[in-house]
Every structure is written in structure tokens, then in C-alpha cells.
């Protein structure tokens, strides 16, 4: 195994990457009660068009299938996998994002047994027409829950406004209609195409022995024979946004406003991607972060509160800066934010704010290693984008004001901008 360490963070991890097998990352956390493991598959909601391994014909599957698969893996001939984790004193869960699907558990009990169960169940698909039908009912309720959630709606609407073609514009769970179209054969097709050891990242953190974990992992998830790989088909995303504005009325009390700037330069991995991500995040912090003049003015005028945020989403094939939150006056807030960014474009980035912001991101980096689960998650997300676990601080040190200014003129541009607003449908009831 290869040991990676970082003195400043007082962190270390052990990596193993057998040919054709999963990448294993072990983050030792001596003295912690809880042990955590995750299996992350490079397969998300954007992977709905592909050429299956060994085939020549492209296929398109119903939206939401990666998420459906994630639900369904928790059931096999013997029943519900949650019960087996529970019997081992472990608690399991999973999530599906646009780019990946992740299964994880935490335990304070028998770790090797729960680890074996995790690696086994993700390799054992079992789908029948009855179990698929049952899951359609459950996922329909999940989709409806999100339809009533203004935070999710305003975000989803923004992605639909920003992207013209790229499937990040499709809801991760799909729609009630697309989910009803999913059949057993689709699930097996997608499972066989994407769930392969070589497409998998395994993370373990807690009080464990790295070498022992490597031995266990190679036994439980042996490398696949040199099979053909799936070919993922992503559409070309044209420049410019799909719609400059999306509005939705909901039975809520408080409006929500998000502004999004679509990333124009995509396709990079590793250091350039990390550099872009940090420069943009730091830029957003200096413009609208807690210590910025704009934040305090908007806060003092009652247009925003603690729930306001600004962050950069930096994936390989798509990206966006997203800022906003709940506000009593979405139109005025939109105007203020547009004006504030335009003013920054002519004034440039304040050097002192840049230095303070960099210090803050250093503290954030430290904090992110507090939770073993967050550290493991960060490793997985970084790995899939070609970024090492400790590259962050060095990349941060290497940044200069000019990097931020470059992002300001290249990325935070009016022609990349879309606005999403959720407004109350009816006046809030007096309570």
C-alpha cells in the first residue's frame, strides 16, 4: 500500500489500487468509536446514455435509474439488507448524486462483518417485477416529497435553466412518469455496465489496520478480468444558458432566490480543476461571504440572513457558481447581487479580503477532517475528479489575487447567468 501524509493537517491515509480492482483508501482514526466504510461507484444520474460493454449500439434509459438501482440493491432473495446491517450493530445508507452512487455504513460493533456485507451486497443485484413495482411506489413518494420542498425546487429549476443539453438538468430521482417506465431488464443492463470493481472507490476510516483492510478488500471485491468498459455518452453543452429565468409558485411562506453562473471551461481534471474550484470559491467568499461589505449591507437591510450562501460546483464535465437563499424580496436581492458583482468586475478583488478568505479556507480544511465520514467522502469525490486528498492546502497557497480576477471576468459573466425564484403561491396564513 502507498502511504500519503500531510504534516500541516496531521493526516495520513493508505492507498491500494490493484489492476482491474477497486481503489481502496484507508484513513486511520485511532481512538474513534465509530468506524465507517463506503463503496462509491462512478455512476450517477447523468449516465443515462451509454454504449454497454461489448456492444456497439448506444442505449438511452429512463431518467432516475441510477437512483432506482441504489434503492433496489438493498433488497435480495433473503429480504432487506438494512436488517442484516442492524443485526451487526451497523447502520447503512446510500445516496445517488449526478455523478456517483455511494453506499456506506457506520458501526461501533463488528466492523469486518459489516464491511463484508457492504462489499457483498453491492455485488449482488436481485430485481423482480414485484420488487420493482413496490419500489416505484416508494420512490414516487420520495419524488413528491421533493416537489414540496422549495429548496430543492429552486435548485433543480436553476440547473434546468443553466444547462441546455447536459443531463445534470434532469432530476436525480427522475420523474413519477420516468420511474414508472423502469423495467427489470433496464436495471440489469445498467448494473452490469457500471457496477464494476474498476469503477469503484472504497473508503474506510476509523480505528482499523490498513494492511488487513487491503487483504479483506481483495478477497471480497476481487479485480475484474480485463473486460471492455462502458462508454458514457454525454451531449455537447453549447455556450450560454437554457433560460435566463425560472419561476415557480409554491405554498410556502418565504420566497427563495438562487443565481447561477454556468461554467464555460470544462473537461479538466486534477490540479487545474482544483485550482479553478478554489479560486472560484475564494472569489465568491470575497464578494458575498460573511466578511464582505456586500453581505453585511444586505444582511443589515434585511434582504438575507444566515441561510444565504455561495458555493462553486466543480465537476469534470460541468460546473456552476450558485448563490442565494431565502429572502423577503427576491427581486431586490437579485438586483443587488447583479449590481455587486458588476461593481467588483470594475473594482477588482480586495487583497486583504483575499488573504483573510484564504485563512478561513485553511480553517475549513482542518474542520473537514474532524469527521471520518466527511474525510472519506471528500476522498471519494476528489478521486473521481483526479484530485488527491491533501492537494487542497498547497493549491490554496499557490493562488494569487490574479487567479480570482481571472475567474471574475471569465466566469461570473452576464451571459452565463440564470436566475431561479420560488415565490409563495398564496399569502401566508396568519398564525
Amino acid at each position, binding site marked *: 500500500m502507498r502511504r500519503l501524509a500531510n504534516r500541516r493537517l496531521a493526516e495520513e491515509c493508505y492507498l491500494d489500487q490493484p489492476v482491474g480492482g477497486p481503489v481502496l483508501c484507508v484513513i486511520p482514526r485511532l481512538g474513534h468509536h465509530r468506524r465507517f466504510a463506503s463503496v462509491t461507484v462512478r455512476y450517477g444520474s447523468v449516465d443515462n446514455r451509454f454504449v454497454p460493454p461489448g456492444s456497439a449500439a448506444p442505449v438511452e434509459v429512463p431518467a432516475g435509474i441510477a437512483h432506482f438501482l441504489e434503492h433496489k440493491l438493498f433488497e435480495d432473495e433473503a429480504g432487506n439488507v438494512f436488517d442484516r446491517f442492524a443485526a451487526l450493530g451497523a*447502520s447503512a445508507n446510500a445516496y445517488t448524486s449526478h455523478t456517483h452512487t455511494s453506499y456506506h455504513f457506520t458501526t461501533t460493533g463488528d466492523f469486518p462483518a459489516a464491511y463484508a456485507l457492504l462489499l457483498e451486497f453491492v455485488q449482488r443485484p436481485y430485481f423482480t417485477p414485484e420488487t420493482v413495482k413496490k419500489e416505484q411506489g416508494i420512490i414516487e413518494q420520495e419524488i*413528491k416529497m421533493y416537489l414540496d420542498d422549495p429548496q430543492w425546487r429552486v435548485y433543480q429549476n436553476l440547473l434546468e435553466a443553466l444547462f441546455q443539453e447536459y443531463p445534470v438538468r434532469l432530476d436525480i430521482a427522475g420523474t413519477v412518469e420516468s420511474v414508472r417506465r423502469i423495467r427489470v431488464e433496464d436495471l440489469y443492463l445498467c448494473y452490469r455496465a457500471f457496477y464494476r470493481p474498476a469503477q469503484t472507490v472504497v473508503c474506510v476510516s476509523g480505528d482499523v489496520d490498513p494492511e488487513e483492510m487491503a487483504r479483506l478488500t481483495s478477497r471480497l471485491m476481487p479485480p475484474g478480468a480485463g473486460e471492455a468498459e462502458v462508454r458514457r455518452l454525454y451531449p455537447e453543452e453549447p455556450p450560454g444558458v437554457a433560460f435566463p429565468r425560472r419561476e415557480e409558485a409554491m405554498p410556502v411562506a418565504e420566497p427563495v432566490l438562487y443565481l447561477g453562473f454556468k461554467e464555460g471551461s470544462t473537461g479538466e481534471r486534477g490540479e487545474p480543476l482544483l485550482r479553478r474550484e478554489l479560486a472560484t470559491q475564494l472569489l465568491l467568499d470575497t464578494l458575498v461571504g*460573511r466578511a464582505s461589505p456586500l453581505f453585511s449591507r444586505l444582511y443589515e437591510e434585511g434582504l438575507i440572513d444566515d441561510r444565504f450562501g455561495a458555493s462553486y460546483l466543480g465537476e469534470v464535465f460541468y460546473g456552476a457558481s450558485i448563490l442565494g437563499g431565502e429572502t423577503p424580496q427576491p427581486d431586490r436581492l437579485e438586483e443587488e447581487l447583479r449590481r455587486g458583482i458588476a461593481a467588483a468586475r470594475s473594482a477588482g478583488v480586495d487583497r486583504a479580503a483575499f488573504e483573510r478568505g484564504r485563512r478561513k479556507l485553511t480553517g475549513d480544511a482542518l474542520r473537514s477532517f474532524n469527521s471520518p465520514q466527511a474525510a472519506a467522502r471528500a476522498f471519494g469525490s476528489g478521486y473521481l475528479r483526479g484530485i488527491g486528498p491533501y492537494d487542497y492546502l498547497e493549491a490554496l497557497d499557490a493562488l494569487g489575487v490574479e487567479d480570482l480576477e481571472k475567474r471574475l471576468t471569465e466566469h461570473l459573466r452576464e451571459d452565463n447567468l440564470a436566475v431561479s425564484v420560488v415565490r409563495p403561491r398564496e399569502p401566508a396564513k396568519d398564525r
Partner: protein
Amino acid sequence: MTRMPNGIVLYHYPTTQFKTVTMMLCLHQRLGDDAARTAVLPFLLRRGCRGFPSLRDLARRLEELYGAALEPGVWKLGERQVAVWELELAEERFVPDPGDLLGQGMELLRQLLTEPATQDGAFRADYLAGERENLIRRVQSLANDKRAYAIFRLGEEMCRVEAFARHQYGRVEELAALEPHELWGYYQHILRENPLDLFVVGGGEPEDLARRARTVLDFPRTGGVTLGTTPLGNAPAAPREVVEEQQVHQAKLCLGFRTATTYADPAYTALAVANGILGAFPHSKLFREVRERASLAYYANSRLEPTKGLLIVSAGINAADYPRSREIILQQLAAVQAGDFTGEELENTRRAMERGILASEDVPEQKIRDAVVGLVNGRLEGVAERLARLRDVTAEQVVEASRRIRLDTVYLLTGKGVA
């Protein structure tokens, strides 16, 4: 635990497990007519103090302290309200040039509490106006989160003649009536008289930390007020049903029960196990029956309010499935009460709860919050004691505790005109 001369009680959990130190100052009050006055304080004091008079000055100071995080908060634990100031700082050993980072952080907390930004001998009117409006919006925006809204409405209906009905931020009209001079007097009073605790996780040697706390937080107090415990209420002879309509896609069903058992009661652990078998986990009856077998819901679970002694079941369903969902939920509780659960269900629940207790040791905020729940209920126990109690619970005790559970109110938030 160290009681300082001015009555502040320091609870220190030394550990090197984390890269940051977490400090929380907790000011206690009864949940009642003063709710809005107490609730605004953490937010108002975060607006500025003598040394850092504006939000921006404070934000800059926090960035200088290596991205220290200051989080104001308000907790409602039964009928106790707790105003919380949380400061999370990098542990000194992880930053290149720490100086006295911990002492500076503590000093910042002292300034926030004892030297708020003032105007005419009271709180600044503009700061108060802003924070008052923020909290009014936060109370109203409960309607944005339908799941939380339904749970709150259930508690409000169930406890409509009890203090527990209040939102942790108080009522809108109480917030709207806040006034700088009157609030200043109130604050000076409770800062002097009410229980004030400092919790610290990490932060080096206990003696050194206690000395620093004593030196920095030495402002005069009497700490004379003792706050009582939360009274249990009674379920009505026949359960009430409350139905509310909004244009939602998914109906939210909440069932509120009285358990006649609070955290202070020795039978509480058995009740918590009963709740675990019923609905707290993915192996519980509610998840298995309502979601996995009947395919009625994405989420269906139960939770306890330990200080008021309530059990609340919550599920998101199609409106048309209301009668069937309600019936299945009540059947699951009846099964627990009849002792109709396997040894495996009991042991799985015991293991899951054990994991929960141990896991909260790994999360400083959770560890502190657990301690405050214990403190408020007069039963502050360490992990070992809590685990021992859990190990000793028998199936008979679970059944006995569950038989005290009575349905009080059923609340349904349902759609109109939406498929």
C-alpha cells in the same frame, strides 16, 4: 465539572480526537412568555460588541482566528429554552502561528455577552429591528419545510394549553413587540441570575482550561435562579384529529402520543428501546411495514421528545392512503405493546442505540447537546452509565414502558387540487 465563583459551570471534555475545539455557552430559561426575548439574544449579540461593533468586524475577526465559526442558536428541550453561542476554533497545534488562539476565542465570547453594541444605554435599535425581523421570518418560513411544519403543528395542537406549544423562537406577535430598553433590562437580569454553562470539547489540559475560563469569564453574576422540570401532560379521553389543507403534492401524517415517561424517569431507557423497535431505525416496524411491505411512504418513523415525554410518528403519504396508513401505524404500536416483537428486533435496536450513544462521542456538538438534555432533566450521565442502562433493559420492561403510551392527537396536512 467546575463551578466558577460567579456561578458559571464549566463542563470540560478533554480530548485530542478533533482538529478543532468546540465551546458552547448555554444560557437557560423557562419556555414561556419570555420566549421571544430569550430567542433573539444569541442573534442580537452576534451583531456586534464594543471591540467588533458590526457584523462585518466580527466576521473579519473570525477569519483572522483561522476561520473560527460562531453559531448562535436556540434550543427547545421540553419546556426549557436554551440560548446558545457556539464557537469552534482550530486546535492550537494545527495552525502555524496560533498565539493564544483559545484565549482569544474565549475573550471574544466574553465580549459578546458582556459588552454588546449599545445605543442610549440599551441594545442598538437597528440591530434589534433586524434580528427581530429575521426571527419573524424564520417562524413564518416553517411553512417552507412541510415535514418540520407538520411536526410543529402537531405539537402545537397537542399541547395547546401547555408551554410546549410555543416555537423555540416564540410567537410572531411577541417577537414584533420586542423593544431595546425593555429587552436590555431583561437580558441583564437573566445574564446575572439564570443558569449559564460553558461546555468545551478539546482545548488542552483541564486545569489550564479552567484557569483560563475563570480569568476571562469573570464578570459579576449571582446565578440565583433555579429552573424547574417540564411537567408531563395528559392525553384526552378520546384522541383528537386535526386536518389542514395546503396545495401540497404529498400529505404529511403525524401522530402524537403521550408516553408518561421523561428522560428523568428510570423507565426512560426501556421507552427509548420501545421507540426503536417501533420506528427509529430502518429495521424498525414502521419502516418495514409502512414503507417496505405496504409501499405507502418513502419515510415513516418515530422519535421521542425526551424532556416533555412525547412520541411522534411522522410519514409522507398519498392523501388517499391516510386511513390505511394510520391503521398500519397504530397496529405497529399495538404490536409493541402486546410484546409482539422478536428477540432479534430487540437486539438490533439495542445495538443501534448503543451505536448512537458511542457515535455522538465523535461529534462535539452532539456530545454537548446530549449532556444538556441530561442536565435539564437532572440526570447527567456518562457514556458508560448510559450503555449499562441500555444493556440491562429487558423485553418485559420495554412492553411495560410502551403500555404507558397513549394516542393524543392525529394531525394530517393534506393536499387540495393537486394530484
